[in-house]
């Protein structure tokens, strides 16, 4: 068991899954020879050959479309989209085919595809490199969407995704690719898709976050705990299918609810969580359920991005407001 980064965990998991299952194929733009612009797939082509790890032409439609064909013919492709902001040219394939092929063929063709894509802001990036597009996947029946916040979960969720017989979008929080290390077992294990994780139990308020926002959320929660409030922190981990049951159970206990995400506010994942909390725990609510999110604007270029950032401070303030509401 070694201490590794989230990025390293993904690399090792791909390696392990390729080792264990010859049907796993990895490709994308610059994914092969170079090992990806973030080096997530580094070393794989050398180890498994060009047949299993290759560089695709710049054509997200063909990258996802070919994965659909591969899956129909028995492979388990793990294509990479270089940044989630560039998934749009492949979105037609994702929505109109990948998410529907099982249903369309009444189960004849399943789609064991895992699409990896780095997402999220805070890295001083160019336009289209900082988006958080959870909603565009979670709204589509037939898709699953997972987001790890730790190296351990990255391995477990990616392993589960690759073994899943349904298409899984695997969002990689690139801001914390190398932010910290964690002990990750060498053996294969899965973290179940569809199960949120109660990271910290508490009684006064429930806060839900995921991905890169977990760190800031935990810090904000810590500040609140230091001030004597008990905070239940949930890492949603799977965005779709959303484990609202775990969240609702928690809110039934705390009566207060805050959801945190980088994505824009309107129709962000927060809107659905608030609706489900309403549906499941309305009469337990002691304060209005609240979201801490990005504003409804285009992610600014780096010198303006701080205006859009969901900071620890912002989360802390909202948590406090909700926890102390009377």
């Amino acid at each position: 068991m070694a201490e590794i980064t989230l990025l390293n965990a993904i690399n090792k998991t791909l390696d392990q899954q390729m080792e264990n299952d010859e049907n796993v194929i990895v490709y994308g733009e610059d994914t092969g020879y170079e090992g990806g612009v973030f080096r997530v797939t580094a070393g794989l082509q050398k180890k498994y050959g060009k047949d299993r790890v290759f560089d695709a032409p710049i054509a997200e439609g063909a990258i996802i479309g070919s994965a659909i064909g591969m899956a129909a013919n028995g492979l388990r492709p793990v294509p990479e989209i270089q940044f989630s902001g560039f998934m749009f040219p492949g979105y037609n394939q994702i929505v109109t085919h990948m998410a529907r092929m099982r249903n369309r063929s009444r189960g004849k063709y399943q789609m064991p595809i895992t699409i990896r894509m780095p997402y999220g802001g805070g890295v001083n990036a160019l336009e289209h490199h900082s988006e958080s597009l959870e909603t565009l996947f979670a709204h589509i029946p037939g898709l699953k969407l997972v987001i790890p916040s730790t190296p351990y979960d990255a391995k477990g969720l990616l392993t589960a995704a690759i073994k899943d017989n349904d298409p899984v979008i695997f969002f990689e929080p690139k801001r914390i690719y190398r932010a910290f290390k964690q002990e990750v077992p060498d053996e294969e294990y899965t973290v179940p898709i569809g199960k949120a994780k109660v990271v910290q139990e508490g009684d006064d308020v429930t806060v839900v976050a995921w991905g890169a926002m977990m760190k800031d959320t935990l810090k904000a929660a810590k500040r609140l705990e230091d001030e004597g409030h008990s905070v239940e922190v949930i890492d949603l981990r799977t965005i779709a299918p959303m484990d609202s049951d775990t969240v609702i159970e928690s809110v039934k206990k705390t009566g207060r609810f805050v959801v945190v995400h980088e994505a824009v506010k309107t129709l962000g994942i927060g809107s659905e969580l608030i609706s489900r909390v309403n549906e499941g725990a309305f009469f337990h609510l002691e304060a209005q359920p609240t979201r801490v999110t990005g504003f409804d604007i285009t992610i600014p270029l780096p010198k303006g991005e701080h205006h859009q950032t969901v900071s620890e401070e912002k989360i802390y303030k909202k948590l406090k407001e909700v926890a102390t509401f009377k």
Partner: protein
Amino acid sequence: MLFDDYNPLEKKQLQILDPDGKVVNKDLEPKIDDETLLKMYKIMRLSRMSDEKALQYQRQGRMLTFAPAMGQEAAQVGPMAASEEKDWLVQAFRETAALLYKGVTVEQNYLYWYGNERGSRYDDGVNALPVNVPIGSQFSHAAGIAYAARYKKTGAAAVAYIGDGGTSHGEFHEGVNFAGTNDLPVVFIIQNNHYAISTPRAAQTRAATLAQKAVAYGIPGIQVDGNDPLAMYVATSEALKRARNGEGPTLIEAVTYRMGPHTTSDDPTLYREDSEVEEWAKKDPIERFNKYLANKKLWNKDKDEALTKEYKKTIKNTFKKVEASEHPTVDEVFDFTYESLTPELKRQKEERLRDIEESEAK
């Protein structure tokens, strides 16, 4: 070789059987066994008759919207006869004859257009993807299938269809190019039936032929008389040979004509002249092939009449069966969203079942 001789940039078009059923290109006449020749003919007839009958039912309000293949049967049956069972058919949405050849039943095909997904679950062993409605998006599926076939060394290739209108789509480009760079075993067939709904072929692209688009991908392209089943057979055979040899994809333009409406929601008299349709009727692929078989003494009028009678009956019975079929159940519309129901979908399904119960209780 064939593809060098029939360079679309030199305005060459491959024809073997002329509209009168005469072999005009003896050297290239394929050696197809009698059984296969008869199967080709019969499938063409079955496809045509099932389309015609469905059109009737549609006008009676008994069938829903569908896309008839009438006129394009040769462009579909030729390539299917040239390929093997292990090869994959990746259709667009007007490939009735190709599907029937591949082993899909008239019943399945009817059921699908009748509005039931059960009809697009083709039997195991029938290597064909379901109808693909989003124009152009199927070519990369074919590339992926071919990738998997090569990787698993099954020796199979993919035969993929698109329309003339579909060639304008970005995903056409991406799919062929992806197959090209990877030297994948795919045969890409454009059925140029001269229209995309009301939009004529000329409005789709300034290129003189669609076959010449192959140049963009560094692969061979050929324009073929798409109403000539033998020419389509030969071009596809050559392309499949290349595919299986690891030489990569080929682009075939089948020049044909959509004899019927785009779909049953369409009124072609709005945008094309009857005279044009009549001209093309003279080049009908079925009549042409009928004459060829008759010349070969493989077919005659009596046999044809018997076939017509038989198909009439089976088609009618099939449609009755489809009309009597159970509509999709609650299980069916919910249970194939994922491999297993999510907790939320389970609740929603229960809600739907409750709704039905309550409305039935009334």
